[in-house]
């Protein structure tokens, strides 16, 4: 399943790159892109893992940029 999420207050291009790298490392993620310009996160993961992956991705985002939030 491939899903797109909006990232609120994603303010720094380097943080976007770091988030992308961190989310790509999450177990179960097939592909992940953080688009700094459109402030969007695209995650591709198996349907069964998706909830799990998403909550780990949210944690990764908070770790890199505490002010940034994923909007579901």
């Amino acid at each position, binding site marked *: 399943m491939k899903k797109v999420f909006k990232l609120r207050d994603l303010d720094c*291009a*380097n943080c976007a790159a770091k988030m992308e790298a961190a989310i790509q490392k999450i177990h179960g993620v097939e592909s992940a892109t953080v688009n700094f310009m459109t402030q*969007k996160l695209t995650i591709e993961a198996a349907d069964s893992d998706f909830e799990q992956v998403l909550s780990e991705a949210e944690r990764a985002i908070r770790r890199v940029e505490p002010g940034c939030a994923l909007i579901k």
Partner: protein
Amino acid sequence: MSRRQKKDLLRIAAAAVLFLAGLLIPGETARLILFLLAYLTVGLDVLREAGEGILHGQLFDENFLMSIATLGAMVVGEYPEAVAVMLLYHVGELFQSYAVGKSRASIASLMDIRPETAAVERNGSVIDVDPEEVAVDEVFVLKAGDRVPLDGVVIEGTSALNTAALTGESMPRDVAPGDEVISGCINQTGLLRVRATKLYTDSTVARILDLVENASDKKAKVETFITRFARVYTPAVCGAALLLFLVPSLFMDGRWADWGMRALSFLVVSCPCALVISVPLSFFGGVGGAGKRGILVKGSNYLEALAKADIVVFDKTGTLTRGVFHVTVVHPDQISEEELLRIAATVENASDHPIGRSICAGYHGSLALEQLSDVCELPGQGMSAVLDGETVSVGNEKLMRSLGVELPDCPHAGTVVHVARGGVYLGHIVISDQIKEGAEEAVSALKREGVRKTVILTGDSQAVAQEVAAKLGVDEAHAQLLPAQKVEQVERLLNEKRPGGTLVFAGDGINDAPVLTRADVGVAMGALGSDAAVEAADVVLMDDDPRKLATAIRISRRTLAITRQSIVFALTVKLLVLALVAVGAANMWWAVFADVGVSVLAILNAMRALRVDGL
């Protein structure tokens, strides 16, 4: 400006006032208090986020680096420097956020083709609804000045549509009942009633917006490279800072404070922001600017690949030629051109064959059909009929030979139609596809842009391919190819390209999906409304002007050049300042310039990518 940005601006202004007051006021204690207040006004958030970062194991994030640098400067007693670094860091961040927002907004307005409402006929009255709520087969009304909300077919009325927002083409397109209209165009003159043929989400406008917006998801190689570089750069500079602090103070002169300040300046320079932001910002601008010119680029990576075009391969029919057959040459024997055309058109009048139709279309006089009798179609050969009491045959070489008519050689490429009357040769008419306006210019513009080789691949005859290639200045032409053979040719050419160069294939998107996918960059032309082509291609030219290909390459080259300028400039300044700081020739103020100043300049440079007029 957003609310958050306004709040930031206020805080910066307050801190700046406190800072200035601190610089001017006499008395050590008062100064110290003012500096501290100024520092906390802008720095508290940074310190807090740095703290959170440490807890999360984010050691090299900007907040952390800035906190260490400024706190260190205060420990050493350089209060004004500490405040200034923090203040300018904030100014840089604010500017960055403002510029990025501005750039997002200007792309949105470049692509301002989103229709607000659709005036739908429901239960006998016309109501305005959200285009997303319109079902297929519902009828909507367009007044002059309205934007077409969904793709559809005109059922009543005539008008001229302005397609400029989609194609960059300023000539209005005339529509009448039965014609398709494409969402995003503007109805200029008459009142139209249109039956929707697609849902809003499948309509052209929604798909274009989606493509342009998400193009930056597919990242260019240079962007991936820079983010990887940043991951090494920051720790490396921080490591160097630590060495710069420890080694000389322990083993050389022991001037802790001086070496400490130099090391802290290193930390300020170690932020990779200017590098990291300039790449996606430039590509975003380049893709948006191209969209404005009717060139849809489906990814930053394709924009990058276009810039390196080494070989350009064209499909012929529909790409370099119009794909519509016309009478191009009339060669009469003994009679006039007009007479030859009239005879041929009279006989072919009854024919449904495309060749017959194009001959009829080529004759503008009136036909005396009452003189015609015994019309007979000879499949694979032509037509024969009795006209004014004599048997007239119109057809190919085979037909003429079966009649025993002597044929002259015709040097023209195309389909040759011969005419004989009562066994006497009257002449021939050549029907061929016409070269598109601007095709020659398109090829020469590509050459000027440094494309080494241009090739035509076509299913048409060798003679036609050679003639078109010679006329346009195309280097190679390969004819009579089946779709699979086109792929083979493209594979052969892929091996021929220069290292680092790319192969671009441009076709009209009909039957060339395999080649579009096989090429490094597949360009579909005149694809407005053709879903399959938009799907298969990497770059879509909205109108069918082949010159747009060179425009696309120019835009991509400039985008890449801007990116390169920003990277080279940022790295040079950073390394230079690092060197100067290391030997003590530059202080923390220079370091701030190498961080914030360079970011601001890189952002301003990147925003130039958006302006593509005149390219």
